[in-house]
Structure formats: C-alpha cells, structure tokens
C-alpha cells in the first residue's frame, strides 16, 4: 500500500467517525463500554433461559461487550421484572420479558410490584411459540373435533394438565373451553415437566402447553399433537393444523419472549439495541438453534412491540377474567 493511498484511507476514517459521532447523541456514542446484564426472571434451564442464553451470546459478539445472563427467578417472574423496573435506564440492565411478566401478570396478580408498561422501554420481540394441544395416545381422539365431541358426549371424563395457574397453557385451555362450549377439568402442576409426566402416564388426558415443551414427546410418538394456537402453522410441525383451521374460529394465542429496558431509555441506545437484536434474530445461527425446538423467531421495531404488548395485555386480561384465575 503506497503512502498516499494510506493517507487517503486515514482521512476517510476520520470523516466517517466524525459522521457517526454527529449522528448519535454523546451519551450513547460509546455505548456499550461495559458488560450488559440481561436479567432472566426465571431459573436457569427453563424456556425463557433457553431463548435468553443464545441471544446473550450472539448479542455480545455483535456489541463487542459481554452480555451476562443473570437468573433472578421467583414470584412468577415478578422479582426479576421489579429489579429491572427499578434499575437505571442506561442500557446496561435489560430483561428477557415473557408473555407472563409483561402481559398476563398485570391481570393475574392482585398486587404487582411493577407496571409492565409504564416502568419499561420496549426494545424488540425476540421469539414466540404457539400453545399446543396434546393428548395421551390412548385417548381416542385424533383431532380437535374429536376432543369437542368426546367432551360433549362424556362430560367430566377429560382433564387437561397445565404448567400452573395463569400460565399461557392454562389460559389457552380456558379460552378453548369458552370458545367451544365444552367443559374440561383443569389440573395445575408446578411447571411443565411434572405435567408432561402425568400426561404420558395417562393420569391426565390432555394438556395445553407451549409447543417446545411437548415437541420431543410428540416426535417420539408418545403424545399426539392435535393443534397449535398460532395464526399460522409452526415450522417445527408443518402438518399440524392451527385451531382456526381445525374449526375453532378467531382463536389465537402465543407465548412470547422479548427484550425490555427500564423506562426512559435514551432513544439512541434503544435504536442501537433494536438494530443489533434484530440482526441477531435474523442470523442463521440463532434461527437454527430455536426453530427446531418449536420456537419461532420474531423481530420487530420498538413501536410495533409496544403496540403488540398492549394487544396482549387486553387479550390475556380477558382470559384471566373469564377463567377466574388469580394470584394475590
């Protein structure tokens, strides 16, 4: 490389860096200059952790700063969410929010220590999973219509398990009952794993649970997957109908995960995080990790995410109210 060309490149670099410096406010110009903490409001190993860990790793590579996953489980995600709600809005504390912490809990809990809208800055939706209706193979049903027919002809014979009161699975089950007019007994468990175990053993007949928790059993032929609750079919199970296709009109729910920061995060940082997170979401390595598990990756803008959250709060609020579920 000859000296004149080197000088030219040097000039270009200076001009370019000046342009960047002008374009972004001073506060966020050098963001991030220290590790970022991503709060996961549930214990390690759970579905939320499974979305958060790869995201943290790839995001860290893009930002050239470590993104540390910090599991702060407890009280249905409230402890972690409250921690982020009260954290400084500097972009160094983020939360892997869920449909529970940032939509359902607002209606489910009588006293919530944080406001899922006012206390947070939405950044981006990251992933979503439909709720699946699965049945023990010994139950004589092979479609949603069969379930409705059986429940109507033999009332009280069908029970559905769920990962707990007020979980997306439970509420979707209650919404299903309301939409179809059938009565199914609800049996709550402490988490997904024990509920799946009892479904495999035939203690319960049906279960509503986010797709990724039951997919391994479905693939092994130990559970029958009857329908998924998303608007479109799942890439992980393309030959399974949606509820709408199976005859339950206007029926759509999803469990989702997204990134929020504390309220009043400077717009420059919001933009930077949104850009980088959406780049991660679009990357093949991230998609390849999540899609086979039954999780769909979802990117959007902060504005879309805020609107989505409002719709979700309204939708789940009605379901919570109709089901009578409550945690005080």
């Amino acid at each position: 490389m000859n000296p004149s060309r080197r000088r030219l490149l040097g000039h270009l670099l200076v001009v370019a860096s000046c342009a960047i410096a002008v374009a972004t406010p001073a506060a966020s110009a050098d963001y991030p200059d220290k590790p970022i903490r991503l709060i996961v409001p549930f214990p390690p190993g759970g579905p939320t952790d499974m979305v958060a860990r790869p995201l943290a790793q790839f995001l860290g590579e893009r930002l050239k700063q470590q993104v540390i996953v910090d599991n702060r489980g407890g009280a249905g995600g409230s402890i972690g969410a409250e921690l982020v709600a009260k954290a400084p809005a500097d972009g160094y504390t983020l939360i892997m929010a869920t449909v529970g912490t940032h939509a359902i809990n607002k209606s489910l809990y009588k006293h919530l220590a944080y406001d899922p809208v006012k206390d947070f800055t939405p950044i981006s939706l990251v992933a979503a999973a439909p709720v699946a209706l699965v049945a023990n193979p010994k139950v004589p049903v092979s479609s949603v219509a069969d379930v409705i027919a059986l429940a109507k002809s033999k009332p009280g014979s069908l029970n559905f398990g769920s990962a707990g009161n007020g979980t997306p699975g439970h509420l979707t089950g209650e919404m299903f009952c309301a939409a179809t007019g059938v009565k199914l007994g609800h049996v709550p468990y402490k988490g997904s794993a024990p509920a799946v175990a009892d479904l495999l053993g035939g203690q319960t007949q049906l279960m509503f649970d986010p797709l990724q928790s039951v997919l391994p059993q479905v693939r092994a032929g130990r559970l029958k997957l009857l329908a998924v609750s998303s608007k479109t079919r799942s890439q992980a199970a393309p030959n399974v109908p949606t509820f709408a296709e199976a005859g339950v009109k206007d029926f759509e729910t999803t469990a989702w995960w997204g990134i929020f920061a504390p309220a009043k995060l400077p717009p420059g940082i919001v933009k930077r995080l949104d850009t980088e997170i959406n780049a991660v979401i679009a990357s093949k390595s991230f998609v390849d990790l999540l899609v086979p598990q039954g999780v769909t990756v979802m990117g959007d803008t902060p504005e879309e995410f805020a609107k989505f959250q409002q719709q979700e709060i309204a939708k789940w609020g009605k379901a919570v109210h109709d089901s009578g579920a409550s945690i005080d």
Partner: protein
Amino acid sequence: MHQALVDLYYGFGVALQPHNLMWSFFGVLVGNLIGVLPGMGALSAISILLPLTYTMHAVPAFLMLAGIFYGSMYGGAIGAILLNLPSHPPHAVTCLDGYPMTRQGKGGTALGITMIASFFAASFGIMVMIFASPLLVKAALKFGPTEIFSIMLLGLLAGGTMARGSPIKGVAMTVVGLLIGVVGTDVNSGTIRFAFGFPELSDRVELVALALGLFGAADFLRSVNRLEFIGTETHVRLRDMRPSMAELKQSFFPMLRGTLVGTLFGAMPGTGPTITTFIAYALERRVSKTPQRFGHGALEGVASPEAASHSKTQVDFIPTMSLGIPGDAVMALLLGALMIQGIAPGPQLITDHADLFWGLIASFWIGNILLVILNVPLIGVWLKVLRVPYRMMFPCAMFFIAVGVYSTNNSLFEVNEVLVFGIVGAILMALDFPLAPILLGYVLGPLVEENFRRALLLSRGNLGVFFQRPISLAFMVLCILLVVLQMFFAVRAARRKRRPMRSEPAPAVGATVPATND
C-alpha cells in the same frame, strides 16, 4: 442385554478418548470442590460454566456438566460428617450419625464408609440405567398423584418418629416443618400463604437456607464460646480411615437398602434427593434391631442415606435422558445445555445420539472411579480441618454459607433466611427439640398436599381412589399397619411400665456426648 453390552463398549470408547476424558475429569473435580462448599450446589456451578460449553463439542460438554452434578454429591457428606454442616440439604440426615462418629474419633471411618457406599450405589444406579431403563420408565409412569401421595404419607409417618428423644417433641417438630412447607403460592388456587408481604416467600422457603440454617448456623451459634477442637484424634493414618471388616459387614445391608430406596425415588421425577435420604434413614432405623443407637453414631445411619443419594443421582438421569423430563432444576439445566448444542432431548436421544448417551454412561463409571481415587487421599486432608481452632473455623464456615446460599437465587433474602433459621434452630436445640423432623416435614409436606389435592381433582373428589389403585393400596395398608403397630407397642410399653422394671439400657456411647442437634 447383549446389545446393551455392545453399546456400553462403544460408550467406553467414546468416554476414554483423551479429550472427553479430560473434560470429564475437569467436571468431577469442579463438582467435588463445589460439593464441599456449603450451599454452593451443582446448579450454580453448572450455570456458571454453561457459557464455556457453547464453543465445545456436545459430548465433552455434556460429560463435563454431568460430572459436576454427580461429583458434587461426593463432596456433600464431608461437611456433614466432620462439622455437622451439611453442604447440601440431602446430606443433612448424614449429620445425625456422622457427626457423633466424628466426636467419637471415628470421622475417618465414617468418611471411608461414605466413599464405599457412594461408589457401590452409583455403580448400581449405572447398572440400572444400562439394563433396566425401559422397565423403570414404564414403572415410573405408573406413579401418578395417587401413588405419590400414598408413598409420601408413608414416608411422613415413618419419618415423624425417627428422631431420638421424646417422640412428642419429634412429632411437634415435624408439624413445624409441615407449617414451614405451607409457605408459598398454592398450586391450585394461586393464593399466597404466609408470605407476610415478602414476594420472595411466594416461592416457598428456600430449602438450602433452611438446611444450612438449622444444621449449620444453629450449631455454630450454640457453640460460639467453645474454644476446643471438634475432633479428638491428633494424628490420622490411612489405616484409621479404612473401615474394618466388621464395620463393612455391618454397613453392607444398610448400603443395599439405601441404594434401592435411591433407585426407586430416582425413577420418580419430582421427588427430590432430600426426601430420598430422609426416607432411607427412617427405613434403616425402622428395620434396625437396635434403633436406640441411631443418633449416637450408628454406622448404618451414615451408609444408608449416602448410598441412597448416590443411586438417586445416577438413576435421576433415566427420566431425564429417556423421557426428556427433567427431575429437578439441575436436570432441567443439563437438558437446556443439550438444546443449546442443538440436540433435542427426549425419547429419541438414545438412538439419535448414541455416542452421547453411551459415552455419558461410560463416563459415569470412569468419573466415579476418579472421584474415589480423588477422595481417598483427601480424607486425611479433610480430617486436618478438624484441628483448625473454632474461632477461625466459625467465621470461615459462616462466610462460605453466606456465599453459597446467595448463589442459589442470586439474592440476599435467602441469606437472611439462614440467619432466622439459625437463631430459631439454636433456641430449639437449647430446649432439646430435634431439628431433623423440621426438614423432613418441610420436604414431604408440600408433596403430600399437592398430590393429595391433585389426585382428588382427577378423581372428582372420590377419596376411595387411594384404595382402588393397587400400588397406592399397598402403601396405604403399610401406613395403617405402621400406625396400628405404633399404638400396639405404646400400649404394651405402658402396661410394662406398671410392673416393676429392670434398669433401662442406657445409650452406650451417647452418654458422654453433649446433645448436639439431631
């Protein structure tokens, strides 16, 4: 059977590859060290090391993480036996007889027996995994809420009277444990019970905090002004650690019974290791011809629960690996680690990733052998810990307790819980109340309640369901027998008392030992 052996041979080929062997060794080493630290469980160790595995190949990554898990079990008993400080809740029951043994200068023997029991039970668990997995999975699925309720009820009845000393005090403490177990969010109604406005308490009282408070902190608080050493032995030779032939014989059947209890509970996902060890201890006391020796350094009381915890640890991998259903939080995290590697856990895992599955099983064996080799020379080192003066030991141990308990949930609330339970425990000990039943009530109570209500929910309120299902019926009959026999013995003893009595056999060794916690 033949196929299993071929697969196992293949597995050893995988596990013995230098690279895999190295990570496996690293895992058990970390696990062993973590296991010694109070409260610092495999869960926190694995979640800290998880990012390291992103860039690794799946097999060595999983061998390492699994190694941490079973390796941590080996370290857990050391604190319980030597310091009356259970590093993990399952080992709390080992304190009951392990610590009295140390005070009698037999701490080395207790550790030696623990190692033998651990290796024996782990090997048995691995054999079950190799040859009986499908059978066990089939049996495990037969255990619904009805059956689990009946088994847990039996455990509660058998365990409620396991403490030495006044039976009324023992039962009272079991009830206290049940009450502590009630704290938290009710699964069925969502009502938060006895949380007193603390959101942290809506997830139950932390087991690790309860165990370390009652068994670690309480004992320390009681002996703050004690300035002597714990042990009486001044120099320990390798020979002292080797249990004698008689001792080996004495502990063989307890070891076997403990192993079987652990295997049974390992097959049932959702029953924690703490329940397993307590039930093994209670069973041992029940079948013993000399139950009065328990709590005063009975070797059986160490061998059986330790064996149970190790076979449970290994058998726990069966529902996790062959059903894809994690038995506890650590297993959930291990499955999560697999998913990050792009391997879907679940029933097809064994066929789709045979190298991983059989490599893992072979590495269990190699890992367990490594652990024994690692630990036998270390026993001498641990015994030296006893000669550290109390004024130095106490703050160090408290420091490690605080760090370990903090790591369970990254929160200071749990550390405060230890303090509260420590003070409560010290007061109760001063009043000569046994503390072990509290822990038993705490671990069993919620399981009994949850499964009782779930069984009734499923049967639409029909109580007869507990007597209609055969497995449940068998355990219910045992429950009734236990109560009837207890009453029969009580009545007989009361009658005998009226007649002039010969002098009661005094506890042989416990007389000179000041009452520590039970």
